[in-house]
Structure formats: C-alpha cells, structure tokens
C-alpha cells in the first residue's frame, strides 16, 4: 500500500487530506510540527511526502532541505499559501518535486500525487515483463496474460478490447484495493482525457460479462458504493 506522510499544522486541512488520501487507498501518517517532520520522514519508508511550508518550529523549506541533505529521495509536494514566484522557485530549489498553492482542489492534488508516484516507480515495460512469471494472473477460471496481452477463460482465449484488458490489468495490479473512477481513468486512459464516469462503468459491465460466472452478482469486480471498484480476484 502506498504510504503518504502529511506534514500540516492546520487541523482542517490535515483532516481533509487524510480523508481524501485514505479514500484513494493510501496509508496516511500525520505530523503537525516542522521539528518532528524530519525524524518522522526518516523513521520509515514513505512513498510520498506532502509538506506544508508555514509550520511551527521549522518551516517546510528547511524541512525539505534537511531531508534532501540527508539523502532522502522520496517525492515531496509542497503545500503553500505563498504565491510569489520567488517562493515557488525556492521550494523547488531546496529539493521539492512539485508545489500546490492553497486553496487547492483535492482533485488536482490527487492527480499530482499519482503523477509523482508514477515517476518515482515506473511500471516495468512490456520488454521487462517478458518471460517474467508474474505476467500471468489467475483468478477463478480466468487468466490475464500480460505478456501476450490476452484474457483466457478455461484455457480459451476470450475476445476483449484493448481498453478492457488495460482496465483488467489495472485491477489486477491493485488487487484488493479500492480504485476510484478517477484513478482508473488516470491509469487506463491517462491524464488530460475527457471521459465520463459512465464510460468506465460500461467497460466494467462489459468486463464482468467476460470474467464473472454471474455478472449481476459479481465475485471479482466489486462495486464500492459512491467510491469506485475493487478487484477481489
């Protein structure tokens, strides 16, 4: 599970970040004090750090500089109420990977987080995957073969569109975790594409017909009401 450290002293902002990131399926740790941020960030591996700039006892710039000085490579996004260009430049110069200006949209922040996580741990290419035993994912009577990019059921190849296969691959990669429609959109179609939630739902319905014994009572592709889908394969 992706672990995110949130360093934010405003209780309301910390609360909303924690709620949103947990809904996204991330594990969240909160710190409200600049002086505590450095030891906390070094105490265990995090996949990403959200760092407020104006913090008690040590500001976000100083925290960021110190973390980089100590060799920490974890992606850092600065959350700043400062809008001056010089301050943004300073944030990037002390080692932050990105910054978001308050008041920010949670949706934009989520997209930036996903982009940074993708950059930090790129998925293996098809070439790297070739011959890897993990290319074939089995669930029930189905097999998703990522190397050949095909879906089989009871050993027989099932006709599926590229989008359906990509969608299923995204579910398989995130087995057991809630995937919001927004995240599916990002993983399958990529950022900057205008697709409605309805399109995703239609593809899920279509996939269910191909992998489920009873598509109306799915066992693998589970709807999580109001949030998205989870693959329990």
């Amino acid at each position, binding site marked *: 599970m992706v672990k995110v450290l949130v360093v934010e*002293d*405003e*209780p*309301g*902002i910390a*609360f*909303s*970040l924690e*709620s*949103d990131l947990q*809904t996204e399926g991330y594990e969240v740790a909160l710190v409200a004090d*600049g002086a505590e941020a450095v030891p906390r960030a070094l105490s265990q591996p995090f996949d990403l750090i959200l760092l407020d700039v*104006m*913090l*008690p*006892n*040590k*500001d976000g710039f100083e925290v960021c500089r110190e973390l980089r000085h100590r060799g920490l490579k974890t992606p850092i996004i600065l959350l700043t*109420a*400062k*809008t001056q260009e010089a301050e943004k430049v300073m944030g990037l110069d002390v080692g932050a990977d990105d910054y978001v200006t*308050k*008041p*920010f*949209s*949670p*949706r934009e922040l989520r997209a930036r987080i996903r982009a940074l996580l993708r950059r930090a741990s790129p998925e293996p290419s098809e070439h790297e995957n070739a011959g890897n035993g993990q290319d074939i994912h089995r669930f029930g009577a189905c097999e998703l073969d990522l190397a050949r990019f095909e879906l089989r059921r009871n050993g027989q190849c099932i006709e599926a569109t590229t989008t359906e296969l990509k969608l299923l691959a995204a579910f398989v990669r995130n087995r057991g975790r809630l995937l919001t429609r927004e995240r599916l959109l990002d993983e399958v179609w990529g950022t900057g594409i205008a697709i409605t939630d309805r399109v995703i739902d239609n593809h899920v319905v279509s996939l269910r017909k191909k992998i489920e014994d009873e598509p109306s009572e799915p066992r693998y592709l589970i709807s999580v009401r*109001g*949030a998205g889908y989870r693959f329990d394969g």
Partner: protein
Amino acid sequence: MLLVILGSGYVVYRAISRELRVAQLQSDFVAAVSHEFRSPLTTLRTITELLAQNRISDESRRRQSYVFLDHETNRLHRLVEDLLDFGRMESGRKQYRFEPHDAFDLVRATVADFTEHAEAQGFSVEADLVTPEGASASTVRVDEEAFRRAVRNLLDNAVKYSPVCRTVWVDGTICDRRVLISVRDQGMGINAEEKLAIFQKFVRGQAAKKAGIKGTGIGLAMVRQISEAMGGEIRVQSEVCVGSTFTLVLPLAED
C-alpha cells in the same frame, strides 16, 4: 557646505530607511493576511469538494467535517471583521457605544466563551477577579463588544505564544480608581527592544515569526486602540523564555 550636504544626505537616508521599513512591514502584513485567508479557505474548499463527491463515507468523519466547516467559517468571519474594524479604528471612523458595565462580569463572560477554544488546544484558563474590600464595584464605561475583543485578543496571544506551559491566568483588581485586568502566560516572552514596537500595527516579534507562529500583527495594535478609546492604556511586562503579562488599565466609571 560639506556639513550641510552630509547632514541632508543623512536625513534623506533616514527617511528612506523608515519608508523601506514601513514598506517591509506592509508587505509582511499582506503576506500574513493572505495566509490567514488561504488556510481556512483551503479547509472549506477541500472538505466541501470531498463531501460533494461523497469521498468522506464514514459517518463520524462526515460529522467532524461539518464541525470543521463551521469552525473555519467563523474564523474567516472573525478575520474579516477584525480587518474591517481595525481599518475603522485607524481612520477614526470606528463608532463605540460607551455604557457602564461591570468589567469583571465582561471578563468572566469572555473567558467562558474562550475556554472551549482553549481547551480544544489543551489549555486551561484560571481567572481570579477580586474587588478589594472597601473598593467600589468594577464598573467601567466601555463599548462591550470592543472591550471583549481586547480581552479576547490578549487571551488568543497568551495561548498562541505558549508552546510549553498550558495554563493562562487572568487576574483582575481595582487600584487608585482604576480597574486592572491582566492576562499572564509562561510563554516565549518578548525581548526588551520589541516591547514598545509590538503595539504598532503589522509588527510581530522575531521569535514568534521564527517559531512559525502565524498572525497578522494587528491584534495588539487593536488592543491599544480600544484601550485608548476607552480612556485607558495597555501595559506589558515580559521576559524572554519566562512569559508575558499584558495589563489593561481602565478608569472606573464616575458615580
């Protein structure tokens, strides 16, 4: 001739330095106000968006969301009111309604209102308001809302600048036909050079800024404006790393 030129140069240099300092203070103020607005706005925007998109499904967290929305809306409201009122005070357009009130009753009411906010941050407020034997009642002619705001600002500061000690003391007494109301903390304190300057608008203590404590720099300037408008004054005793005592001194109302 040379002396005249040097003298003029020095005067110009002093004037420019003063202007630059004022400009810097104003710039700091704008940045601080911007921050003070952006933080509650961020909470409002993010929580509203998450609720609208049904991304806070847990019922107890939903309830907590509404508490945050209420709290941050009030915070924004207070900030706007403070800025508008301070502008009116500065320009002499603030209209006060001076009426006789029992100062200690007003302080008790302000402390009672403040206690919930203080306790949420782990603070307790101990009030000791004593009318000495033989002294008349603590009646003062004040604008109730302005008086309470001055006391509230002092309480806010006591909590804000006390990183370790979690108690704030409020003492009240009557002496020489004046009411003295003191708000005392064992916080970071103020150094000698800054004691006078902190009652000027936009000025904030260096230690507070360095510690990342947020503020606009108008709270104490408002307290001074209010106390002077009510015919009184504000005093401070402070020692770095020991604490501060701010005392509001007001004349008793004439019988």
